[in-house]
């Protein structure tokens, strides 16, 4: 049985709600730049997949939890290098499948008994003719659950993110790799985190600021 992550705390929920809705009060930032901008985190830039993979292992071993690897494609085995838990998406998809199948059966039984139509003298309650539609609706609801819960768990859609504020980061959709350790991480320290990233063989290390 795979282990699933713990649900977020109330403070975390409020903080993530503030990311989406401007009317939710944001907590005071722990770190600000000299210009008074909120510090989102520190990022390290890489140009090769093996480098970012091995760097991720070191960040994981340093005990960080609120950090991310950004890569133009899914890196094989990155969940192990980053040490995060398996997603609960399959359970949600299974729920979608059950909903679809039971909904389809309920619909067909209801409609067949609400106004019974005699077709070739076959019994009204026979399940066999209901199999194809039950299967199809099961697939349909599973597919919707799957893609919608993937987006929801990822916190998408969203219009803006501090990572988009620097032009350099947009190269992540091309051929660059980034490791970004967020300032909200309990282990985050402006000096030590930066030092850690400096030792990872990154092409460059930058401060990531939020725009407000």
């Amino acid at each position, binding site marked *: 049985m795979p282990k699933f992550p713990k649900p977020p705390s109330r403070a975390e929920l409020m903080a993530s709600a503030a990311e989406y809705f401007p009317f939710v009060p944001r907590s005071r930032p722990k770190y600000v730049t000299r210009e008074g901008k909120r510090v989102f985190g520190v990022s390290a830039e890489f140009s090769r*997949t093996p480098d970012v993979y091995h760097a991720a292992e070191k960040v994981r071993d340093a005990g960080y939890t609120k950090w991310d690897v950004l890569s133009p494609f899914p890196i094989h085995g990155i969940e192990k290098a980053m040490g995060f838990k398996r997603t609960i998406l399959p359970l949600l998809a299974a729920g979608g499948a059950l909903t679809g199948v039971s909904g389809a059966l309920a619909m067909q039984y209801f409609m067949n008994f609400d106004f019974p139509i005699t077709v070739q003298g076959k019994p009204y309650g026979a399940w066999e*003719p209901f199999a*194809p539609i039950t299967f199809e609706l099961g697939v349909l609801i599973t597919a919707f659950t799957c893609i919608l819960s993937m987006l929801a768990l990822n916190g998408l859609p*969203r219009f803006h993110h501090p990572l988009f504020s620097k032009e350099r980061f947009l190269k992540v*959709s091309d051929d660059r790799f980034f490791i970004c350790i967020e300032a909200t991480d309990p282990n985050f320290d402006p000096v030590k985190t930066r030092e850690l990233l400096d030792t990872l063989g990154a092409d460059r290390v930058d401060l990531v600021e939020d725009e407000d």
Partner: protein
Amino acid sequence: MSSIHPDKVTAERLAGLREDAALGRDVEIEALGDGSLVEDPAVRPPLVLSDRTLGEVTQIVTGYVEDPPPKWWYIAFAITSTVALVGTCMILYLIITGVGVWGLNNQVDWAWDITNFVFWIGIGHAGTLISAILCLFKQKWRTAVNRSAEAMTIFAVICAGIFPGIHVGRAWFAWFLAPIPNSNGIWPNFRSPLLWDVFAVSTYMTVSLLFWYMGMIPDLASLRDRADRRLRAGVSRPFTIALPGGRLVNLPLPKPDTLRAFIYGLLSVGWRFSSRHWHRYEVAYLILAGISTPLVLSVHSIVSFDFATAVLPGWHTTIFPPYFVAGAIFGGFAMVLFLLIPLRAVLPNFKDLLTRRHIENMAKILLVTGMMVGFAYSMEFFIAWYGANKFEFEVFANNRVNPAKAPYWWAYWTMITCNVISPQVFWFRKVRQNPWAVWVVACFVTVGMWFERFVIIVTSLHRAFLPGEWHMFFPTWVDILTFTGSCGIFLTLFLLFVKFLPMFAMAEVKAVMPQGDPHGHDHDESHGGGH
């Protein structure tokens, strides 16, 4: 031709440093060409040629969207959209006038319309097959073709959906197909395969669209980011038109990059390439692939129930579901090849992403599925004889096969020639590896698959049990132009896709490139821990 070789072994062999005989195989250096056709099982053929970097792959794929389309694109688009317009007018004419404008009659009440429906829905099977089944089998070469095959699937299903929709006659009553009670409180008949078909095709359409869209989110984000970077760098150009004198005039419109950043930005839902997101994305993709696999198989099975549950000789057979599914994959792959081989010739650098190996692999699938279809044809015939059902045997012998008695013998033999005989040339490696030879066979197969559906539908219907009702089918000009029009709609949508959406799954291609391997060979292996 590139001199890049996939592996030192092949390079040495080509340079004559290594004896071919020692490896037990005679290697033709000519045929090896760009290295994608390497025969050595120890060597993995490269999936991307010319030693491209990750950035070059982005540039090639986004270039098709961002660069002005080539001249042939405008010409092709003008032709196909005109044909599509004619088809749309035919549909309108039919809806206004009635189904009588087609050549249907009391005996042959399903003809070109349902033939076209099954033809298009069959073509629509390759896309999801490539994305789902080949994904589950971990066939990495699918990354070169999956996006365009999925797009083709959507467009083929759109074309397929037209025909039953307008064939019902009074198209404004098409809502009777939905599970809504009509004005007498009667629900649809859930024991009818035609209703199952409505659910199967609409589910297939929706799930294929979701699959296609979800796969495209990261690539749309790439397009968004490129447009955004150009805007920030101030190098975006405005819309211009060229005056006769050659002078360019700027139009007072938003810049193309502004539109791109906005539209692709909305469509890519704020994707930021986070590994935590990628993890859920990959799990979701795998589940979608897992549920789409039985879905692909179910859709054409259910289409075949439309026929198989009728008592009509020639339709009433249990072999129909697997036979239809094999035929659908066969016809779908033929259409993928039909579309992609010309694009490979005319679009720059397309050949580096869609190699001859990919085409050869698809040719092999055509050969296999062609043999399955051929087996189904012969088994159908065998059972018609072995089952000792006089009527069924008559349908085969005297309505289809025998030129002396069957008026539609030419349709049957066209089908056999195109579907069973023509793919047999793929037993020869030289033919499989020649893209244009593959293209010619793909054309034959596409024609053959249309005739297969025509043979199944019309030759079974035109002579049923009562000889007094026997009637031939003659298509009217509306029949012909509606079908041609549906081809126009299909190709127009495909050309729009080529221009406006990423044609390759960039993220997936990058992940299977050597640079995408987190344990690359040129790196110290001792660091390779962590799994």
